[in-house]
Structures are given as C-alpha cells and as structure tokens.
C-alpha cells in the first residue's frame, strides 16, 4: 500500500525562541531550522512499514517556502521515495494544511496518511484530525503503536489516563505521539541518494485550495517572567521556607 507522510519545517526544538520586538511574531532570520520532531516519527513509521513489506511507496508532503525542499530531502534520506512541496510564502493554518493534504490524497490515493500530532511552532495539534474529517476517514490521533491487518489497523493511542485501543478501517489518518518509535539518523550515503529522488513543486491554486489565514494574529508577546528564586542550603531550610514563606504545605 501507498503511504503519505507530512513533514513541516520548523525552528529547531532546542533553539531558544525570541519574540520580535515589533510584536508581529518570533525571530526566524538566521535561526536553525529542522523537521518537526513528530513528523520525523511519522516518516520513521512509514519507513519501518516499508521495510516490513507492508508499504510499497512513501510520498512525503511539505507545505511552505522553497526552503522546505530541504525538509523533504531529509524525509527522502530517511527512506521516503519522493516528495511534493506545496509552495506557499506566508503562514498556512491547520485548516488550510488539511485542505491541501486532502487535495493531494485525492490525487495520490494512499491507503494511510501519517502526520505529526502537533507542529512544535504553532502547537495547534489540529491538522491530522482535520484531514481525516475532510476525507471522511477514521482518525487515530496520538498513536503509540499501529499494526496493519489488511483493510483495518489496530492502533494504541496515548490518552490522558493511559492508553486506548481502537480498530480503524483503512484508509485512515494517523497522528504520531512520542512513543511510536525513535527516528533514525540520516546517513551521508542516504543524503546523496535522496538528492536524486523526485521532488515535485505545486502551488495551492493548482490544487484549488484557498490558504488565506482565517485567524488574524493581533500581536505576539513574551510570556510573563517568573521572579528570581533563592537557593536553599539544605532540606531543613527548604521545609522552613515552604512552611513559613510560601505557606504551601
């Protein structure tokens, strides 16, 4: 079966993000970028399923500027067979992402779409569930295990109280949680090989999708800072502070 995975280019998760002084957003100039970690898990899952003989082809999709081609190349170095970039200059909100992914699914007809549970920049946690809705497919959000059995899949989802088990009909959309797998590192030979894999660039108009943001960002600010704390010498002092100063115990 064919699998489609989505990969978003985001600010590297270990970079300290800075709010722009004009309040319009966060600083992205000269900032290290990376593939969204949950998308890495999505690609890894697809590659493992291909290695296990369940998947025949992996198509990676990214939406963003031409620089997102790098993210697609990384996905291909991990094992995706080809890439599709939907080139958009500005912000693309999750509903528009879902519409674009749906349009590509309509063309590509994959049996499974694997997306990250959340993009670590907008922290929306929406696009996967939205894509499933627009396709009229079942969804398994926040999955930590998936087994495909012909036309259905058994999935384990991470929920607030523990784990939930579902059987979903295929085709379906799955979103990845942290425990699904540990993504592999890309090797130099695979990076070289990825350069030769096909990468198609499309425009949203060609897919008939309106990507104009629905939510208007009025301003972006720094969060409130905590006031500086104090170092205590030992447990005794700590207990005294908790009882007499903070009065929380």
């Amino acid at each position, binding site marked *: 079966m064919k699998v489609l995975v989505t990969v978003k280019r985001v600010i590297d998760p270990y970079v300290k993000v800075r709010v722009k002084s004009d309040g319009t957003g966060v600083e992205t100039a000269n900032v290290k970028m990376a593939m969204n970690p*949950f998308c890495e898990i999505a690609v890894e899952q697809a590659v493992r399923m291909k290695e296990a003989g369940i998947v025949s082809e992996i198509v990676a999709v990214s939406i963003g500027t031409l620089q997102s081609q790098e993210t697609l190349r990384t996905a291909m170095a991990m094992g995706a067979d080809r890439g599709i970039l939907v080139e958009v200059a500005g912000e693309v909100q999750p*509903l528009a992402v879902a519409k674009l992914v749906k349009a590509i699914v309509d063309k590509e007809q994959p049996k499974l779409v694997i997306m990250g549970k959340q993009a670590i920049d907008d922290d929306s946690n929406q696009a996967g569930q939205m894509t499933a809705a627009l396709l009229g497919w079942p*969804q398994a959000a*926040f999955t930590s295990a998936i087994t495909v059995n012909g036309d259905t899949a058994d999935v384990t989802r991470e929920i607030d109280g*523990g784990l939930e088990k*579902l059987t979903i009909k295929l085709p379906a959309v799955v979103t990845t949680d*942290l425990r699904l797998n540990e993504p592999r590192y890309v090797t130099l030979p695979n990076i070289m090989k990825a350069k030769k894999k096909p990468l198609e660039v499309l425009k949203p108009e060609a897919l008939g999708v309106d990507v104009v943001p*629905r*939510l208007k960002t009025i301003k972006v600010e720094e969060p409130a800072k905590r006031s500086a704390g104090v170092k205590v010498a030992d447990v005794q002092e700590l207990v005294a502070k908790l009882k007499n100063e903070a009065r929380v115990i």
Partner: protein
Amino acid sequence: MSILVIAEHDGKLLKPGTTNTVTAAVKIGGDITVLVAGHQCADAAQVAAKIAGVGKVLLADSPLYAGGAAENLTALLQTIAGQYTHILASATGYGKNFMPRLSALLDVQQISDISAVVSADTFVRPIYAGNAMATVQSADKIKVITVRATGFDAAAEGGSATVENLAAGPDTGLATFNGQELSKSDRPELTAARIIVSGGRGMGSGENFKLLEALADKLGAAVGASRAAVDSGYVPNDYQVGQTGKIVAPELYIAVGISGAIQHLAGMKDSKVIIAINKDPEAPIFAVADYWLVEDLFKAVPELTQQI
C-alpha cells in the same frame, strides 16, 4: 451569544478541566449549554447541571460515544453546531482529539489551547512551547475553541440547569473502540492536584520512583514525570508533563532530577510555587524555581519526606 461546552467525564463525575472551560465560556458571555456525551453518563449530566452559570445540559447517552473516539461524536455535534456561536472543550487529550475534526467539518479554523479571553472573537494562546503568547482574532461564524485549564479558575457549584436528552446521531462505523488501559492510582489526578511531585531521568529507574511516591503520599500530591522518565519506561505515558504532555499549574510543583528543558517548562512554569532538586548547580530548571536545592536526590528526597 450561545455557547456549547462539551464536558469531559468518566460517566459519573466531570474531569477537572471542564469547569475551567465553563469559566472561559462565562468570560465570553452568553447562554451556556453543556453537552455530556458518553455511555451510561446520566450521573455526569447531573453534576454538570450544578455548575454555576450553566443554563442547560444536553445528555447524549449511547454506546456510540463510549471511549474517546472522535468519528461518531463529531457526527453528532455536526447536527447541533449551527445553534451556537462558540463551541468549547478542554485542551486535554480528549478535547484535542475530536475538536479539530469538528472544526474541519464546520469549515472553521479552530483556536487551540486558549489561556485568556480578550473578547468574544479574540483570544490569547501560547505558541512555541509557551515561549511566546499570541493574541488571535477569529472571523469564523462559529468559534471552535479548546481551553487550557490552567488559564481559568474552576467554575463554582450552585447552578440548577435542566437536563434534556439528545438523541444519538449516526453510527459512522469508521472506528471500533476496543477498551482503555487506565493507570490505576489512589493519588489525585495530575491536572487536578494541589501539589505535584515530578521525577526525571535523574531518578535512574522506575523502582526509584517509590521515593517520590512516598513524598507524594505524605503531601497528598500527584506524581508526574519528564519525557525522559517516560521514554525510559520508569513511569507510564500519562505521567508526562510538558509541551506535548499535560499542562499543570498546581500550588506547589516539586521537580526532582529534571534538568528543565523548555519542553518540560512549557507544562509547569505557571505553577504557583516551584521547587527544584538537582545535583547540577547549572540545571536550567533553577531559572524557574522559587526554591532550589543543589543536592543528590537520593539524599534529599528521603530527608524531605521525613521532615514534612
């Protein structure tokens, strides 16, 4: 304005975030209806009817809504959504699962995880793991919103809403619910606890978490963890606090053997008082701590348990 709040519950009681979500609805202003959808959940509907500010409770009691599966629930919601200007649910694993699906079915851009209400169409939400706060305005006809419980107080009791039955919607047949494996614990739930004791990779093993459990039991606290502790298999996934785990803001958060990565801070830095115990004097967790102790946890934690 007409607001629908979708309750999260276990059939008998409401989950902690639901009453905070009602408070967010009160801040938006308007008639508030609470939907309790589930299987054998009439008791939870009675509890919802007692929340101050709630005008009506809709009870959709059917095996179709057992568990947290989104497909049938959103099919039901789609039939009533048009009656509301705002649809709210907690930004918990439950709400995050079905709300975006509903939002897409309504052709609406959801507003995730709001921590403040500015006006009926404008909200504040954290982005980049809480390193920035965005104020966003929605022009959509229905505002579909998930609410970060720590941004709002719990609504008080004192209401006496009517409970009406809502007939079940269609069975989409897309997903079969095969049960849940819930972590069993006598301790309070993480998102409801007044005190949380959290352990990180520094705990070294699941066995060593017993040290934290002893402290937690003495304080009546919940036990949480960093991602590293969960990934290492010390504790189950539902213990994880952080950007991609649970967001908590207790009166007291005790971080033990946790370095303080931004993804962890994202989940706990709004706690009222933060204590950190770490043997590394440079640990970034100290930057958000009110009181910090540089010591080996295997010495400090038993002492602390003994002295309080």
